[in-house]
């Protein structure tokens, strides 16, 4: 369990660095385009497309980080009235379902990439589109892993006979 958590932490550090880099690049290129357009009546032909793909990357990495931090937008009506063990059970079910659906999405995303690969679709400067789109199966895969981690944590809580508050820290 601990080793998986460490791996998860390392991945999330990489993701954070990537988000910071990509967002900075996005601001830079988007602003540069405006300057070029207004002051020099020109622009980078690939700038707008690049910015759009940067949004895709930043958005999907942001979404996996949201999975890691439990910050996805949820409705959570029941858990407001259920506490203790009941809440643990509800969380376990929610994580298990999320895990299944995310693995299906990963599968669908791999199919999508495969399709793009065979179509040989390209973006700007002749770069194959699948390179940019690869982030989609990658992040869905990561989300699957993270929901699995969180599911097993809830299971571990259920397994321990009386929920020990210290356990949360240890896990």
């Amino acid at each position: 369990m601990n080793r998986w958590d460490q791996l998860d932490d390392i991945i999330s550090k990489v993701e954070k660095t990537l988000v910071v880099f990509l967002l900075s690049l996005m601001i830079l290129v988007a602003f540069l385009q405006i300057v070029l357009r207004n002051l020099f009546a020109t622009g980078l032909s690939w700038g707008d497309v690049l910015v759009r793909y940067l949004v895709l990357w930043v958005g999907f990495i942001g979404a996996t980080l949201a999975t890691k931090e439990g910050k996805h937008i949820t409705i959570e009506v029941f858990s407001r009235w259920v506490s203790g063990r009941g809440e643990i059970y509800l969380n376990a079910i929610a994580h298990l379902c999320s895990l299944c659906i995310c693995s299906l999405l990963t599968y669908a995303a791999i199919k999508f990439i495969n399709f793009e690969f065979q179509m040989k679709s390209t973006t700007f400067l002749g770069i194959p589109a699948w390179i940019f789109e690869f982030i989609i199966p990658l992040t869905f895969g990561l989300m699957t892993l993270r929901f699995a981690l969180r599911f097993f944590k809830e299971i571990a809580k259920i397994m321990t006979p009386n929920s020990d508050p210290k356990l949360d820290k240890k896990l």
Partner: protein
Amino acid sequence: MILLLIVILTIILMLIGAPIFVVISGLALYLFCSSQIDLSAVIIEMHRMATTPILVAIPLFTFAGYLLSESGAPKRLIRLSNAILGWLPGGLSVIALITCAVFTALTGATGLTIIALGGILLPAMMRGKYPELFSLGLLTTSGTLGLLFPPSLPLIVYAIVAKVRIDQLFIAGILPGILLVVLLSAFCVIRSVRADVPKTRFQPGELINAIKEAIWELPLPVVVLGGIYSGYFAVSEAAAITAVYVLLVEMVIYRDIKFRELPEIMKRSMVLVGGVLIILGAAMGLTNYLIDAEIPMRLLDFFKTNIESRFLFLVVLNLFLLAVGCTMGIFSALVVVVPLLTPIGQAYGIDPIHLGIIFLTNLEIGASLPPLGINLFISSMRFERPVLNLYVASLPFIVILLLCLAIITYLPWLSLVLLK
């Protein structure tokens, strides 16, 4: 029959707290699978959504908003509005309303307002001898106030989902947004006079100092809106300019934010952006399925046979949207309900932009509405008060908000006049 079961399962899954994007894409996967469409269609829709040109505005505005909220800008804003309005009876409550509205517009109405500003404003109002229940109600309902002001995230999301022009929606929201703030302020002033809240004197010197202090942030509304309004910049360009401007002002001029704090702020803002984008993407597949299955048309037929007048339709629409806003929350309601309702609204001759403003006002109020409005729970957590207490506290404010809603709904002029 199976479909009904699946829908019920989906709703249960949503209620026990599975992420909205998981639930929506699960439903989409099932529907595509059952009509023998390849599963990768869900991803194609997501990809198409995420690379829409206009979407660039979301990360840029959100980042700028988070940066501002982490800087000294809220404090400068409170000081400035205190200098301008502090002499009014109930001045502090009006200041609280305005600050919350500006803050919400910048950070995207995701509950951040109550958490970030509540801690400053509630003690200040208690010191200012405002009644406790009144202060709690005010801060709770202000949690989503300002949602109609650009560049709030729900406005952008609505424009994308309903396929209306963002710049028009930005401009349409201004007067209705001001109406909400003005009517609530009037109520606050009346309540404060009755509760005999002590006043402070107007000091011209303080006003000048406060303006001097905030001089670099004051042009921001012009940066955001001016370029769009004059048609000189597209919305996504305005977003890029805003991000660069805020970066320069807060990091180079005010130096409120240190360079090493920047990565954390970037990450936190992008976690929110990711959460919203992935819901949008997931909903795209579902929406297209529903449109192919002609669900909106069937809904429209149902409405047309049962409700004749536009007046009645708007009443039903408002009640429905309040319920949706209260239970589903703003973003899930936007992506799920908007595509279904916009064709119906148009069939009743409601301007799409006006419909958007009605929609967002409802969701804004719904977020404070008992029993499930999210603001009530965030407040309960932040101020450590029982939720029941907050139901009572927010009631008078909700009455005022509902009055505003009626005006906004039946006076399209208010939303559309600036567009002409």
